[in-house]
C-alpha cells in the first residue's frame, strides 16, 4: 500500500478508536449478545438458534450504524474542520485521501466486528457449553457481514464525497435496506416487461446485493455455506466496492472545496 494511504488509514482508525461513540455502540452490541443468552434460556432447545440469530443481527446492525455514522462524516468533517486543506496542501493526491479513509474505516469495522464476534462466541459457548463444527458457519456469516461493511463504507464515502452528512446517511441507509431485498427486486424485474423490466433490472443490479451476503439464518440452523458462494461474494464485494470508490474519486477529484 502507498505510504500516504497507509498513514491516512492509520489516522482514521486512530480517530475512530478514540471516539467514545464507538465504545457505546460496541457496548450495545455486546449487551445484545448477552440479552440473546437470556432469550435463549426462555426458548427451550433452540438456544443456539436464538443466540446466533440475535447475536449476528446485533453485529450486523450496530456495525451498519458505525459504518454509516462514521462514513458519512469522513469527507465532510475534514472539510468543516479544514483538516482536508492542510492534507491536500501536502503531496497527497485526492484519490489517496479517499483510499486512506476507506481502508481506515474498513479496518475500524473489522476490529469492531472482531470484538463483537468474541461476544457472540462467548454467548454461544455459554448456551452450548462447547463449540461445534457447524459454528464455522457463524465465522462465514461474520465474514460476509464484514463484506457488507466494506460495501457500506464505500457507499458512505461515495455520498460523503459530494453530499451533506444527513443526506449521505439517508442514501446509504436506504441503499442498505433496498440491497437487503435485492434478490426480490431481481425476481420482480424478471416478471415485468418492456421499459419497466429494463428499469427494474438496472436498479436491481445497481443496488448492492446484500441479500446474498446474509447467511445468518443458515448459520443459525447449522447449514454449511458453499465455498463457491464465499468466493463469489468476496469477488462481488471487491468489485462493487472498487467501482463505488472509483466513482467517489472521480467526483472528489473535480470538487471545489469551498
Amino acid at each position: 500500500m502507498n505510504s500516504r494511504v497507509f498513514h491516512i488509514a492509520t489516522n482514521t482508525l486512530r480517530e475512530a478508536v478514540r471516539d467514545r461513540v464507538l465504545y457505546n455502540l460496541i457496548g450495545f452490541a455486546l449487551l445484545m449478545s448477552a440479552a440473546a443468552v437470556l432469550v435463549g434460556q426462555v426458548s427451550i432447545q433452540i438456544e443456539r438458534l436464538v443466540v446466533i440469530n440475535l447475536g449476528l443481527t446485533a453485529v450486523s446492525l450496530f456495525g451498519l450504524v458505525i459504518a454509516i455514522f462514521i462514513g458519512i462524516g469522513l469527507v465532510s468533517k475534514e472539510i468543516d474542520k479544514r483538516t482536508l486543506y492542510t492534507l491536500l496542501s501536502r503531496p497527497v493526491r485526492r484519490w489517496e485521501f479517499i483510499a486512506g479513509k476507506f481502508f481506515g474505516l474498513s479496518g475500524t469495522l473489522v476490529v469492531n466486528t472482531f470484538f463483537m464476534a468474541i461476544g457472540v462466541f462467548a454467548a454461544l459457548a455459554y448456551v452450548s457449553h462447547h463449540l461445534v463444527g457447524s459454528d464455522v458457519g457463524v465465522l462465514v456469516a461474520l465474514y460476509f457481514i464484514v463484506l457488507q461493511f466494506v460495501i457500506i463504507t464505500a457507499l458512505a464515502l461515495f455520498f460523503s464525497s459530494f453530499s451533506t452528512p444527513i443526506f449521505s446517511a439517508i442514501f446509504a441507509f436506504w441503499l442498505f435496506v433496498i440491497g437487503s431485498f435485492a434478490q426480490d427486486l431481481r425476481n420482480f424485474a424478471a416478471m415485468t416487461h418492456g421499459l419497466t423490466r429494463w428499469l427494474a433490472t438496472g436498479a436491481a443490479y445497481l443496488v448492492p446485493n446484500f441479500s446474498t451476503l446474509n447467511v445468518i439464518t443458515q448459520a443459525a440452523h447449522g447449514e454449511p455455506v458453499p465455498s463457491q458462494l464465499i468466493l463469489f461474494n468476496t469477488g462481488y464485494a471487491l468489485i462493487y466496492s472498487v467501482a463505488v470508490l472509483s466513482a467517489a474519486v472521480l467526483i472528489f477529484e473535480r470538487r471545489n472545496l469551498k
Partner: protein
Amino acid sequence: MRAIEIAGLEKVYNAGFWRKRSKRALRPLNLVVEEGEIFGFLGPNGAGKTTTLKILMGLVFPTAGSARILGLELDDPRMKAQIGFLPEQPYFYDHLTAQELLHYYGQLSGVHAKQLSRRVEAVLEQVKLSNSANVQLRKFSKGMLQRVGIGQAILHDPKVVFLDEPMSGLDPMGRREVRSLIEDLKARGKTVFFSTHILSDAEALCDRVGIIHQGELRGVGAVAELTAGVHGKVEIVWHGATVPAGIVTMGAECRSAGETMRVIVPEENQDAALEALRRERLRLISVVPMRSSLEDYFVAQLGVPLKSEVVSFRS
C-alpha cells in the same frame, strides 16, 4: 527564482439551485512574489483572499488563468513538498495530541522517519507548545490551535509558507508571537505569503503588499511606495473647548481631551485650520504631521468604506 507567479487567475462560481447565477469571486489576477520576501495579501472580508489561496493550494479550480509556485505547476507533488499552508481558523483532529498531529503531517509530507521526532520536538519548541505536546487538540484554546497550525505548516521546512489570516482570533501576546515566527521565517530565507485584514500587522511585517477588493487587485508594492501617494494629514491641538466655525465647515471630527481639543485635517487644509484658530484667538498647542498609513491608502483605493470594514480594519 520567483516564488509565486499568478497569471490571469480567475474564479467564477455558479450559484443558485439551477446554477444559473454567476458570482465572480476573482477577476483576472496577475501577481508575482519573489523568493525570500514577506508578502501581505490584504483585503476586507469577501475580497477574494481565501479564494486565491485555495486556488494556489489546489483546493479550488480556477475558471481561467494559471499559477506556478517555485516554477512548478499547482498539482505537482514536488511543489507540494516545498510549501506549507495554514488555513483560516483551523480546528484539526479532536482526538490527536499536538505531537501526534505533527507526526502525522510529517509522514504525509515525506519527512524521513529518523528526522521526524527531532523535527516535531523542535517545532513544538518553536511554537511554544512543548508543555502541551501530549494534550488532545480538543482541549486546545484558539490561540494554541493557531500555533499548532503554524507548526504543521513549517514542520517539513518548506520554502514557501502560505498563511490565511494567521493572527485571527489571537490576543495581543499571541499576535506578537506569530509576528515573531513570521520574522524568523524570513530570517531563514523563506517566502511568506499571508492574507490579513489587520493592516498594522502587514505594515510591520511585509516587504510588499497587495490589496484586493471585490476580486480585483487594486494595488501592489512596498508599503512606503503605496502610502507615499496618499495625501498626508496633520494633527492640530489647541487649548479650549470651542471649535472654530472654519474647522466645523471642513467636516473634520474634533475630539476633546480635558482642556484641549484635537482635530485631524488633510495637509492641504492646514493653513485654513490655523487661520480659523487665529481668528478666534484660540491658543495653539501643537501641529504634528501624520505619516500616511496603509489604512489611509486602503481607504483611498476602495473609496468610501462600509462602516463594518472600517471597524474590522481598526481591530
